[in-house]
């Protein structure tokens, strides 16, 4: 064992659960242990909750295909549906015509990404809108909420 290896051995600590997992005290689902690889960082939060920057996505069998987007502080829970699970009937006509083609184009350029729409459970919602999808870049563990409504009917100026 050379000198450097000895020093490393001296200071290296054994891997602990905390290094790989994060505990979340969810106000809806209780104590959760989530792999740090499943924590998604939103650099600017989402509109209205800009200060909340990290979330995880819980896939609970009884709620499928609904997924829970849960803040790591455990306070905020958003029911979301992966776009891939939506069908034509669930998308409102305006979004289907205007936003679906735009989102499809965006997703084609984003490898290893998943798009979700947030579902409002109260009052009863029959359709979902694609105007502000949540895009999760799985490899980078980064998320953002796109506001597609702003991308429509725009004249882009070349600086």
């Amino acid at each position, binding site marked *: 064992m050379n000198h450097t290896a000895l020093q490393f051995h001296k200071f290296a600590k054994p891997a602990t659960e905390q290094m790989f997992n994060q505990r979340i005290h969810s106000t809806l689902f209780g104590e959760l242990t989530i792999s740090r690889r499943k924590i998604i960082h939103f650099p600017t939060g989402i*509109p209205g909750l800009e200060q909340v920057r990290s979330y995880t996505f819980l896939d609970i069998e009884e709620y499928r295909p609904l997924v829970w987007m849960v803040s790591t502080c455990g306070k905020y829970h958003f029911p979301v549906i992966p776009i891939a699970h939506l069908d034509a009937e669930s998308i409102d006509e305006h979004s289907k015509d205007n936003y679906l083609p735009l989102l499809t184009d965006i997703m084609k350029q984003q490898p290893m990404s998943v798009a979700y729409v947030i579902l409002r*459970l109260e009052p009863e919602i029959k359709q979902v809108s694609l105007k502000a999808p949540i895009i999760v870049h799985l490899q980078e563990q980064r998320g953002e909420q796109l506001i597609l*409504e702003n991308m429509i009917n725009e004249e882009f100026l070349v600086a």
Partner: protein
Amino acid sequence: MLVLTRKLDEGIYIGNDVKITVIEITGNQVKLGISAPKDVSIFREEVLNKIIEDNIGSIAAEKPDIKNLPKIIQNLKKKEDK
């Protein structure tokens, strides 16, 4: 609030790299051109407010009873089960 008066084709800078130019004035409408880096978010006020309202309104306060989930989920569930 800082208030500035601009004429057609005149602009203002916000910081070094965000420029807003008055492109067209028609009646009570003003068309603005905005040049900004890609990472700067630009939203119409009413659009952003609507998204904020939707986001806040979507926070689940309690665990929903799966029997009472909206019809859309029930339909999607049925399709998934097939």
